[in-house]
Every structure is written in C-alpha cells, then in structure tokens.
C-alpha cells in the first residue's frame, strides 16, 4: 500500500511503551490458553521483540517465522478449530507484529489489534483476574496511543507518565456515562446471531456419562459450580441434592443417559407440601445440562424439562446464567413405570458381576416381594462394612463385584454404581443420578456456594406405589464427607494461604467469593431476560425491544448532549463580568446594533444612542462602568462592585426607539 506520508519513526521511549502496552494486553489471553501454547507464543513474542529492537526483521524471515508459529499453534491446539484456536492465532499474530514495527503507523496498528486481545480473553474467561489484567492492558494501550500522537505532531519530549495517565482517565470518565447507559439499555439479543463455538479447553464438570473412578479430577476441583440464594425456607444441607444428569443405561463399565426416555414428556409427579424458592447462578459449562434442587416444579425461562425431570437449557451454558426456580421433594415420582422403561431400568449386561448377581438372587428369595426390605438390607450392609476413600485402584471387568466383595471402600461413583447394579440384579428398577450435594453457606453474602468438588452420584430405586425414591449409599458411609460438615472441606482451608492464616482463611475466602458473586450479580448475569425486567421496581413489568431501544436512544442522546455541553462550556468566557457584557452585546447584535470588534465600549454606546434607542442612556452609563471596571484600577470592594455590575449588565435589555424608557430596562 502506498503511503502518502513518510514514516514517522518511533523513538526508543515510544517503542518501549508500545511494546509494553501490547504485552500487557496479550498477557491475560496467554494465561487463558493451554500452558504449552501460552508459553510458546509468549516466548516467541519476547524473542521477536528483542530481535527486531534495533531494526525490523527481513520480510522473508518474518514470513517464515509467522508460518512456523502458526503451524505450531495449530498443531498444539489439536484438530478441533474453535474459539480457543482463534484466540491462540490472534495472540500469535500479535506476537509477530513487533517484527515489522518501524513507524508510528505500525505502532498504532499493533496497539489497535492488541486492544482486541482483552476482548478475546473475556470470551474465554470472565474471572476477576482476566478482567483486571485486561483493563490494565487497555489503559496502557491508550496511554501509548497518546504518546504516539505526541511524536506524530512533532513533540519530542515525552509527557510525564502521570499526566498521560490523567489524560486517559479523563477520557474514560468522559465516555463512561455513554458506555454505562449503553450497557444497561442497549437491547440484548435473546438468541445469538451465530452459534457459540465450543471451548475446547476441557473443564471437568458433570458429564452425560460416568464410569467408576473417573471423577477424581472433578473431586479435586474447588472452583464454584453454582451459587444459590434461597428466598424463604432453606432446606437442610442433607436435603440439598442438586439433580443433574440421570443415567440409566449401563454397558458393564460406563453409565450413560437413557436413550429410551428422550423425547418423552416429563413423568407424572405428586409433590410434598414443601416449596423451595431459590435462584441459581450456574457457572459456564458449555453444556446444556442444568441442575436443580430435587424436582423443579416447572422449567424456568426457556429451559426444558426432560422425562426424568432433568433440566436443559436451549443453548450451551457458555456464560454465567441465572435461573429462578421453585422445587419441592416428590411424594410420588412416576408411580406408573411404563413397561419398556421398566425393562430399561432393570437391564444388566449378560454375565457381568456374577457374585453380585448371586447375592441379589439370595436376597430376593429371602425378602420375597418386599423391595423396600432389600434396599434396607443393602444400606445396612454398606453402612456397617464399607468405608469412604478417594484412593481406589482402577476397576477390573466386574467392577461391582470387586467393590462389594474385595475392596469395600471407594467414593460416590463406586457406591452408587455398585448399589444400582445390586438392585437391578435383585429385580428392582434402579438408576444412577449425578449432580451436586450440599453446599457451603457464605455468611457475608448469605448465599450457598456449590463447588465442582461437591459433585456427587447417588441412586434412585423404583418402589411400588412411591415411584422413584432417592437412596444415597455414600451418605450412609460418609455423610460428613459429602455434606460439607468437615472443617477441612471449608473452602480455602486447604490452600497454602489457608494453612498460613489458619481459621481466617475461610473468612478471606468468603469475602472474595462474595465480591465475585456481587460482580456476577451486577454484570455477568445481565442478559435479555434480566434487562427486560430491569424497571420492575419502578412499576414497569416488562420492557419490550422497542421501548428499550427508545430508552437507550434517550440515554445515548443525553450522554452525547452532556459531552457537547462540556465542549461548549469550555469555550465560555471565564470572567463573569465579561460574560455578562458579551451577552448584552449579543442582545444588541440581534437587532443589528452589534458592537464592531474594534469599537470601544463607550463609542459603541454613543452609536446606539444615535440610532435613537430608548435604552441608550442606560447603556452609556453601563459601558462607562464597564470600561472603568475593565481598565481602571480596581478598588478594594471590587468583588461587590463587579457583582453589582454583573447584575446591571444582565438586567439591561435594548428597548425600541421612542419607547417609554424606564431607565434600566427592567421590563422584559
């Protein structure tokens, strides 16, 4: 591209600023990328910047380096091309850009593209650290832009960093009203224009399948999964079963969601006389599966209830979402189990777990028709003989056999899986339910925090007359483990900082998590739904798109007017006496008797008198007072005198020829 102007070269100071600002913008993005990728890109950025510090790299070298880096990025991020790969490529391009940065133009475009990096970061992560780093990067980039403008206009000496920071802060503050108005009022899209690309960075969470032993990662992940606020009654911790995927198909090793029940309407339920009213904030999972306490009464918003009363959101939960729900425990749950569903809930692969099958057959013959007795017997056995541990060997071919008869210790996956197999072998329909159990109450914000490590699996058995009944064999063994009653299960206690601070760690954690929750409340969970209900406190039940648009337009226009007012005000005469004098002149200009720029005040007044103006005498007096105020020495009480002068100047109005002249023109 032909350049019109010669390249304005960067001085070392500006180059340092540009590079530092670009680096600060890219840093949060690099932190979000998988670490090998982040290290590779960060390393090449540093190398390229160092190599090209004195003079730009040769074009061929640049091309080869870029191609190599892109190839490495694509190789490292795998075959799946998604948002992550896109972000990595952006970071890589930014890392290569310093190689050709010679002039102000290059530096500008580098900074412009670098401003995109925090945006990309927010698509991957909306946590406070990313946010803080991103905003710091943006501030630095704006300051660097300021410096570039300086050298482009020929200023050699750099402005002081503090002055530059002040200038940028002023600009941001000036733009803030518009930005905030737009943020709250700009109509949101209820459904996106294009799909959300899957985040390939795997985050352990509830999945649609479970095979015993594979949840170890999840149990160690202390990050939040849900935050729940109850309105009215709060259930006891032992009742807080957050139902997620219901798994009823078993292939001998892995439990998966039932294919048979998909598409069926929700099963019939009669409810107990207890109602829990609560709001759940679900951290992004990139899945459509939601969780709810026990059985939700209806699907909130545009979510959907499955046959097993699982909740599905219409779209993958790619950002923090918030749902208001009501739930109650069931009295009966699918009391009539249809034949094919019953078959499916009894199915076991042929020949698997022979010892369990034999035991189940023995129990069945002991108990006769009483299904509940078999369940009780199993629970008693588990309570007395089994232990809870997270360190278990990998299961073999007959996992339930090994668990029930050899190891007799494990965690929720082993307990629930083996229990359900035992029940099915005894002819009782049973299935595995996964989700979260319990929660930790944050006293500062009065909400419940459910972490990923609270993931749990339990069982449901189908009993005649009652339908599906929850049975939790793990809770029989280690209630303290799953209900968060142990001190060392308190958040933060396990971390290095927690050990140093002792008991204060959880308080610190409470405070930080509360801050995070408030941020979520204020900003992250703000969507089309909440926006439309924004003015509910003012009595407006629902804002539709048009009204929202109008409101936004109003706010935007007033913000712009405010800016315009600022720019008008800036050119206003500072001296109030002069201002009043100029206003008076303007009044005369309107009737064609304006003062010429080179005309002294008294001369002008005389000219007005010649034009036979009624107010001429008063104007003459005023202009003499004004002249002596302006040019003669000011005496002691000039403050009072000038106040009076201002008052008289403001009062004066030109009155038409031959009008009855009341002296100082007090008529209006």
């Amino acid at each position: 591209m032909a350049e019109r102007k010669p390249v304005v070269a960067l001085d070392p100071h500006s180059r340092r600023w540009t590079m530092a600002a670009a680096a600060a913008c890219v840093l949060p993005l690099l932190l979000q990328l998988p670490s090998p990728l982040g290290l590779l890109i960060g390393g090449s950025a540093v190398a390229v910047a160092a190599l090209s510090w004195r003079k730009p790299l040769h074009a061929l070298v640049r091309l080869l380096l870029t191609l190599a880096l892109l190839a490495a990025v694509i190789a490292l991020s795998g075959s799946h091309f998604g948002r992550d790969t896109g972000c990595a490529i952006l970071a890589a391009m930014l890392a290569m850009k310093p190689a050709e940065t010679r002039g102000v133009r290059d530096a500008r475009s580098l900074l412009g593209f670098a401003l995109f990096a925090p945006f990309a970061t927010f698509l991957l992560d909306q946590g406070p650290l990313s946010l803080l780093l991103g905003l710091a990067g943006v501030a630095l980039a704006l300051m660097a832009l300021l410096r570039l403008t300086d050298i482009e206009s020929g200023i050699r000496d750099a402005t002081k960093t503090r002055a530059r920071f002040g200038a940028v802060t002023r600009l941001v503050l000036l733009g803030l009203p518009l930005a905030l108005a737009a943020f709250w009022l700009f109509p949101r899209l209820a459904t996106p224009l294009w799909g959300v690309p899957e985040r390939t960075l795997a985050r352990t969470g509830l999945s649609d399948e479970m095979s015993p032993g594979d949840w170890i990662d999840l149990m160690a992940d202390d990050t939040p999964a849900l935050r729940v606020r109850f309105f009215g009654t709060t259930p006891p911790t032992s009742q807080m079963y957050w139902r997620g995927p219901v798994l009823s198909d078993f292939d001998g090793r892995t439990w998966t969601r039932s294919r048979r029940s998909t598409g069926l309407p929700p099963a019939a339920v009669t409810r107990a006389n207890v109602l829990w009213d609560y709001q759940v904030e679900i951290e992004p999972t990139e899945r459509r599966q939601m969780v709810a306490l026990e059985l939700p009464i209806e699907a909130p918003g545009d979510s959907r209830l499955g046959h097993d009363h699982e909740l599905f959101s219409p779209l993958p939960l790619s950002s923090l979402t918030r749902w208001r729900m009501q739930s109650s425990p069931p009295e009966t749950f699918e009391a009539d189990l249809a034949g094919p569903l019953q078959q499916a809930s009894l199915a076991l692969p042929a020949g698997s777990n022979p010892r369990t099958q034999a035991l189940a057959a023995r129990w069945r013959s002991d108990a006769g028709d009483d299904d509940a007795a078999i369940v009780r017997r199993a629970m008693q056995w588990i309570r007395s003989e089994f232990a809870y541990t997270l360190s278990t060997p990998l299961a073999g071919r007959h996992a339930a056999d090994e668990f029930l008869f050899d190891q007799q210790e494990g965690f929720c996956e082993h307990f629930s899986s083996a229990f359900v197999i035992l029940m099915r072998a005894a002819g009782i329909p049973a299935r595995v339910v996964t989700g979260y159990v319990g929660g930790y109450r944050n006293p500062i914000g009065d909400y419940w925090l459910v972490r990923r490590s609270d993931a749990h699996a339990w069982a449901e058995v189908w009993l005649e007359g009652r339908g599906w009944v929850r049975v939790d064999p793990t809770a029989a063994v280690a209630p303290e483990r799953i209900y968060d009653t142990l001190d060392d299960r308190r958040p933060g206690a396990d971390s290095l900082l927690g050990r140093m601070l002792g008991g204060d760690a959880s308080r610190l954690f409470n405070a930080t998590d509360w801050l995070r929750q408030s941020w979520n409340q204020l900003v992250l969970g703000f969507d089309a739904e909440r926006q439309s209900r924004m003015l509910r406190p003012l009595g407006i039940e629902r804002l539709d798109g048009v009204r929202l648009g109008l409101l936004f337009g109003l706010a935007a226009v007033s913000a712009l007017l405010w800016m315009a007012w600022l720019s008008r005000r800036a050119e206003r005469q500072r001296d109030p006496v002069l201002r009043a004098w100029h206003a008076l002149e303007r009044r005369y200009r309107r009737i064609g008797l304006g003062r010429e720029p080179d005309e002294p005040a008294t001369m002008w007044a005389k000219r007005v008198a010649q034009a036979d103006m009624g107010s001429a005498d008063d104007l003459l007096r005023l202009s003499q007072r004004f002249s002596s105020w302006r040019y003669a020495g000011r005496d002691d009480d000039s403050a009072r005198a000038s106040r009076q002068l201002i008052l008289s100047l403001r009062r004066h109005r030109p009155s038409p020829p031959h009008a009855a002249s009341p002296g100082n023109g007090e008529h209006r």
Partner: protein
Amino acid sequence: MRKRVYGWALTFTRPRDPEPLPVTFDRRRVYVLPTRFGLFYAVLVATMLLGGLNYNNNPALLLALLLGGTGLASLVAAQLQLSGLAVTAIDAEPVPAGQMMLLHVHAKAVDGRVRRGLQVALDPDYEDPALLDLQPGNGQAQLLIPTSQRGWLELPRLRIATCHPLGLARAWSHVWPQTPMLVYPRPETDGPPLPEGSGEDAKARLHPSGEDPHHLRGYRHGDSRRSIAWKPSARHESLLVREYQQPAGADIVLEWHSLGGLPHETRISRLARWVDEAERDGRRYRLTLPAQPAIGPSQSPGHRHDCLRALALMPDG
C-alpha cells in the same frame, strides 16, 4: 480526484473570506472528522460490540462500550483542543520573491487547558506542518511558505489541526488572515556592479583613515574593523568608531530613469540588488523612483527596507 472532492468540500468550511486578526475559534468553525486509525478503531469496537452481544458476554460488551465511549470522548477532547484558541497575530520578515518566508503564527488560549501538538499548515496541501505548542497559554508556530512574486502576498487559508489526544480524530479549524505580507523583489542574480558615487569627494570614501575625523561614536554591530579607532578605544575601554561626515557627492544614486531600455521587472530586480549591495558595503545610497519622492540618501536597515518596499510595491509595468 479525491483531492478535488476534498477541496470542493472545503469551500463550505468557515471562514470563506479573509478576516482580521485576532480570531478566536468557537465551535462553529472547529471541524472534527475521524482519522484513518479512528475508522479502524470504530470497526474494532463495532466487532467487539457484535461479539459481546452475540455471546451475551458482559465483560466483553463492557470493554467494547468503554472503548467506544472513550473514542467519542476523544472526539470531544480533540475539539476542545481547538475551541477557545485565539490566533492573535501573524508576522514575517520580508524576503525576496522566490525564497521561503518564515511566518510566525502567534496564538494564545486564555483558559487553563493544556493544548498539545497543534499543527499549522497551509490549507490546500498540508505539507510540512509546523508545531504550535502552547503549554502555558501562549505559543507560536513558525511556518515556511513559498513566495513567488514581489508585492503584497495575500496569505492563504491556514489550517490549525490536531489529532490529540488519541489520534482517533482530527480536529481542525481554518484561519484566513487579512494581513498581507510584504515580499521584496527578486534581486538580479548577476549584472553590472554598483554604480560609483559621483563628484570629486567620491574618493574620500575610499580612505576611511583619512585626516578629518568628525567625531567618535560607540561600536555598532556591523561596523567595519578598519573604522575602529583603536587608540581612543584603549583609553575608553570600549570600542569606538570613527565616523566621517560623508560628502553628499559620495552617495550612490540609484536612479530608475538611468536604467532606460531595460524591461520593467529587470529594472526593479537590478535596483533591488544594488540596494542590497550598497547596504552590504556600508555605503549611503539614494533611490529615486518615478512618481514618488526620492528615498534617502541614508544607510541603515530601515532605509534598506524603505527602498525595497518601494520597489516591491512598484506598479506592474
């Protein structure tokens, strides 16, 4: 083509006629348009906005809006850089036609706002803008403008522009000073030497160390070393110069009519060169032009200016 359209559009901007100084820029004559980088920035923000809306990603949206708001604020700030600025005066030392004239543009801004990096340039081409930095409220820019003809140079429109603070928008304002600048005639490059003074006292001029010193005076910059009276100087501990009363006959007479036969402009050029040479040599000279009283005889920068000015303002032949 692009330049033509732009020039056509500029005819609508204020001011449309030359105006007396001082001129204060108010918002009616400050224009703001995004720069190329500003357009790029707008596209960037729009992309972020769309992405943030689509993914309902509030931090991304907030970032985009914050950047957008800052961009708009920088438009206002760019306008504020110029609004309230006053161009108080423009002056320049006259130069011979064909040389670049150094224009001093004086500006001031009464309020306390910092105005940085204002650039002054000639309106149509904007080449080589001069920096006008007025941090404490007053400032001046030094701008070179080409001259081609002797006489009054009507100044073109000047553009005072700034891309501050972020380089996203350029705010500019035009000032079209009514003050014409004087351009001296172009001196002849080579031609006959300076005519000698007439009369018998002419030779006296050649012996500055002659016998009749009239009086002594203090040394002035530009006095010849030979005229310094070293002995009296030593007594007075400051340099003294002998000044001779020069006989009128030794004066050089630069006569318009004596150059008959030459074309009009050549006469002016030759006289202009002679004025310069006489001044350089430290000789008294007198210039007579048609239809006006003779100038001089005298010898001083002021006299030279009077002569050259008269020559510059000679009506076209």
